[in-house]
């Protein structure tokens, strides 16, 4: 038998037949997977009520020989993140994080760092962190892990390396920055101050547990927000369904 036990975050659950559940989950070992929990709606013993949205669990699953549906054998609750169900804005942000993860990581694409990001983001949200800050931290890091890191190293026009001085503008078509000599600030090319660029650099390339201590100022948040709105719309080519519940 090809059985694996892995920490996993429950992403979606659907009723399947009379007593089964169809579960999408993100594992640290094999990325996002889908599986069937036979008797999942009734079995207290094997699933101990922990097949619930956003829960961090220790999941035992068996790789199926064909297709991409696995069998879930059992499940143990590690952290139910009760704070995520304490109000609608937390539920919405957690859902948004799940949806973005689904878009960036197709079934079976392994990324241990993405699992860590999701877990740490839920831990912080569970403790009641500021949702606008958490959203930006998550977007920036998730996009970077998904292969859409914004290049903050040099101006895309003149090629001069950015030394951390003066404002720059964001160019969505290339996911890069340009210096003020080459480009002007506008609605579709929003500007960023040097401190914001520095912060963004850290957020994109550092695991969550290390960045959450260096909070973003309100000014940085208001500068980064439009940049990621444009960047995500352009790279992902659709608006996230859950985004409308965040406003």
């Amino acid at each position, binding site marked *: 038998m090809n059985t694996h036990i892995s920490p996993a975050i429950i992403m*979606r659950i659907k*009723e399947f*037949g*009379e007593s089964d559940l169809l579960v999408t989950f993100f594992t640290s070992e094999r990325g996002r997977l889908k599986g069937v929990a036979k008797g999942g709606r009734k079995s*207290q*013993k094997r699933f*101990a*009520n*922990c097949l*619930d*949205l*956003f*829960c961090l669990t220790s999941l035992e699953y068996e790789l199926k020989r064909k297709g991409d549906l696995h069998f879930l054998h059992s499940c143990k*609750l590690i952290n*139910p993140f*009760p704070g*995520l*169900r*304490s*109000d*609608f804005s*937390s*539920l*919405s942000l957690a*859902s*948004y994080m*799940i*949806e973005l993860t689904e878009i960036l990581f197709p079934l079976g694409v392994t990324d241990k760092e993405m699992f860590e990001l999701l877990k740490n983001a839920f831990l912080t949200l569970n403790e009641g962190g500021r949702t606008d800050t958490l959203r930006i931290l998550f977007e920036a890091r998730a996009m970077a892990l998904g292969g859409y890191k914004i290049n903050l190293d040099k101006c895309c026009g003149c090629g001069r390396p950015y030394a951390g001085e003066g404002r720059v503008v964001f160019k969505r078509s290339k996911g890069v920055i340009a210096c003020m000599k080459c480009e002007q600030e506008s609605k579709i090319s929003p500007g960023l101050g040097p401190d914001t660029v520095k912060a963004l650099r850290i957020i994109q390339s550092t695991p969550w547990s290390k960045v959450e201590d260096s909070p973003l100022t309100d000014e940085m948040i208001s500068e980064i927000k439009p940049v990621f709105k444009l960047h995500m719309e352009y790279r992902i080519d659709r608006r996230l*369904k*859950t985004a*409308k*519940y965040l406003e």
Partner: protein
Amino acid sequence: MGIYPRSLERLIKEFSRLPGIGQKSATRVALYVLRSNRELAEGLAGSLIEVKEKIRFCSICFTLTDDDPCSICCNENRSNGTICVVEGPGEQLALEESGSFKGRYHVLHGVLSPLDGIGPEDLKIGELLNRLDGEGIREVILATNPTTEGEATASFLVKLLSEKKKGLKITRIALGVPMGGDLKYMDRMTLEHALSSRTPVTP
């Protein structure tokens, strides 16, 4: 394409669109219908049409009903002043069958679920708030399921209800060890709830 005549294939296809029914079960049911007498088919077809034509939402509690208002809202022997809020008609039926609640109901028709595109405006929440004053409600029992989305919906309602009516008693159904359960197999959260909502026992 199929091995059966076209009309039978069509019936199988229609049955397999129902939840929890796969190709195999659909074929079994279709063959059964075919073998049975005409009465069964006519009864089935008639009630399928009737259910779509007659069943509607009760204009007070939004449960499914033939007559508006529904039999529970019309029943004068039930106590006024308490509303039990449930996710759907199935949950209401389960509570009704237990026979332990004699007040009024309100059916939300779902829970908040951003991932499925369900927000506050998709549920019968405004309708619930409107009932508070009109019916002199003193207590609202939140009986959504103890899932992530059910809990979030209950939290959301607590906020709205308390803002809408000062002094309103808002209660949440208890969460704990089920009948016939085994503590060894309970998750941490259920045990925490079971302990914190323990009740005094007298000899």
